[in-house]
């Protein structure tokens, strides 16, 4: 045997990577003079201790499922899409334009508004990914650099629109007018009340959660059961071999990046349409970047992404509660996020190499 068993690859190594990241996070909390175990309990209580906490945890989870899936599709095609943040912002613009400017006559019910918003968000998000994708495919300019640039350009564009043309006249804040009531999505409270389950009224989790879950299934089927998914994966594994198989690199790069952008854009259905109900400056709140950590942790598998998104939803909500009840600032989440990306992404081999050697040595001993 010259390989590790599959379970070690799929479960053991990610677990060890995460363990290191969390132990180090604990040490950071300890170093700033707080008790890591107490902090963890506060976070768990804040995220899962009430339906209010659950409502926020699931709201963040929904965001991260979208952005995590987006990054993972690009990863499958060997593209590193750091532009999820900008694509989600511009997706939000699409959702906002749909909600603000499509006459309410055409949208008699929230379900129809949702369909319009999803189409607009996906098209705008995909459009924002198109130029970096085209430049990578046709000009060979590195998609990482161009998507970073497009994040900044998106920020500037949104800043301009929300101070200028789209700003609500006479308002102090840089924000658009509120969306019409008919576009407001039902929250978990409204969805669960008819079933006799009481859920916090003020929590933002809404029907988008189910869209995100459905999206996990769609992405799984697309990547593993369709011709396009096969082509994307083949291209990602070996671009040169896939060319011999008749797969067009230009097509795969552009399609994979646009799918990625479209799913990032769909995040706005949850944040912009479901929660803020108008266009604001920072609706994405870094979720696009967290998508990178989520995709890495979830090993680019939709089910893994779902679990990782839930973990980060917990960290996000728990972290906010922690900053309310202790002296630990909210930025702790960013530290944890950085450590998770570092150990599950960049330093993966640090754990993988010795573990692999151990398994091989053990197998040899058994043979002898």
């Amino acid at each position, binding site marked *: 045997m010259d390989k590790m068993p599959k379970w070690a690859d799929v479960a053991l190594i990610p677990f060890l990577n995460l363990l290191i990241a969390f132990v180090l996070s604990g040490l950071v909390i300890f170093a700033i003079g707080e008790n890591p175990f107490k902090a963890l309990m506060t976070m768990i209580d804040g995220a899962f201790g009430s339906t209010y906490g659950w409502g926020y945890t699931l709201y963040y989870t929904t965001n991260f499922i979208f952005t995590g899936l987006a990054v993972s599709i690009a990863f499958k095609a060997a593209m590193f899409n750091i532009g999820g943040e900008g694509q989600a912002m511009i997706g939000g613009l699409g959702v906002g334009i749909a909600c603000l400017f499509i006459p309410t006559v055409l949208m008699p019910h929230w379900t129809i508004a949702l369909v319009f918003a999803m189409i607009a968000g996906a098209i705008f998000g995909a459009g924002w990914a198109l130029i970096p994708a085209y*430049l990578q495919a046709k000009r060979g300019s590195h998609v990482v*650099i161009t998507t970073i640039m497009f994040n900044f350009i998106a920020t500037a564009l949104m800043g301009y629109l929300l101070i200028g043309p789209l700003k609500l006249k006479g308002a102090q804040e840089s924000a658009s007018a509120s969306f019409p009531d008919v576009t407001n999505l039902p929250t978990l409270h409204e969805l669960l009340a008819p079933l006799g389950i009481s859920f916090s009224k003020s929590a933002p989790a809404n029907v988008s959660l189910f869209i995100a879950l459905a999206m996990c299934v769609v992405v799984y089927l697309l990547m593993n059961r369709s011709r396009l998914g096969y082509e994307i994966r083949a291209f990602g594994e070996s671009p040169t071999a896939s060319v011999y198989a008749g797969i067009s690199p230009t097509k795969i790069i552009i399609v994979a990046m646009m799918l990625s952008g479209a799913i990032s854009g769909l995040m706005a259905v949850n944040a912009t349409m479901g929660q803020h109900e108008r266009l604001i400056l920072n609706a994405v709140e870094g979720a696009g970047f967290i998508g990178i950590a989520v995709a890495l942790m979830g090993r680019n598998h939709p089910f893994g992404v779902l679990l990782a998104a839930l973990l980060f939803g917990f960290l996000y909500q728990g972290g906010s509660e922690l900053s309310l009840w202790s002296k630990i600032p909210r*930025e702790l989440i960013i*530290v944890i996020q950085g450590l998770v*990306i570092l150990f599950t992404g*960049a330093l993966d081999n640090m754990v993988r190499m010795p573990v692999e050697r151990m398994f091989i040595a053990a197998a040899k001993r058994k043979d002898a």
Partner: protein
Amino acid sequence: MDFLTIIQIADSGLRLATPLLFACLAGLFSERAGIFDIGLEGKILVSAFMSAAVAAVTGSVWLGLLCGVFASISFSAVHGIASITFRGNQLISGVALNFLASGITVLAAQAWFSQGGRTPPLMGEGRFMPIELPFALGRSDAEAAGVPLRVLIDQANPIQQVYSEFISGHTILVYVALLMVPLSWFVLFRTRFGLRLRAVGENPAAVDTAGVSVIKLRYASMAIAGTLCGLSGVYLATGLGAGFIKEMSAGRGYIALAALIFAKWKPVPALGATFLFGLLEAIANRYQNIDLGGFVIPVQFMQALPYILTVVILAGFVGSAIAPKAGGQPYVKER
């Protein structure tokens, strides 16, 4: 717009270009050796924080500089371990370090100073002061003449205006940054070390065959990049500003990367590119919206311009930008 205004904008452009120039040269050394470094942003941030924190506590800006550079080098070392020794993905490592820096600086600032994620303002010896070059109009001249310095410069001849306003009166790090340009050029293009460093970024196997250690060269490039990036952060917190503020790097690491592409991975054009981006920032700071005879350029457009220009360059519409060939690929000795 009169002559003096232009000089003043250029002066402020030079100040704003300095952190970009240090970071851009840092990226230059790193990428020329075949290592992508999108962690410039994070290194600027940790260095800015450490230098300001140490300068605030000890009152010595030089100790601050030392610690700031050390912090940046340690981040570089992690990047090196991840991308050279463990052959991890260099882009992912850079992204991770940026997040780590952005979070840990606020956490530490809050734990040490409890001022909402900033350090106490630096005063006196705690920050770098402007240097008045000989024959330049400065504060002492103004006191001797009994008029404010602004008036004195306004009355001076154009050459004296350029000299006093633009060339003189910067902190030492600005001059160090300018000096780094010819120095980097010399090291990269006129020394054996530089030749090998560039070769490692193009074809590491050839360097290895010649009996030179790829690993050592790449770690050396990481150390240089860490030092330069550290100086960028130090200047930001103790020269340009007076203390650390949360997220004060504000995307400068990414603008430096943009400048690096703009300069096509060469030191002297790097000066031009960073100065251009510095000027854009200075103009955006000075004028909110620019009115060109009825057509108004919004300030957001000026802020986005460095990024837009870089995309245009990358698209190959204005000359082609060809990166070092082996960039981003870990080197595996035997197959």
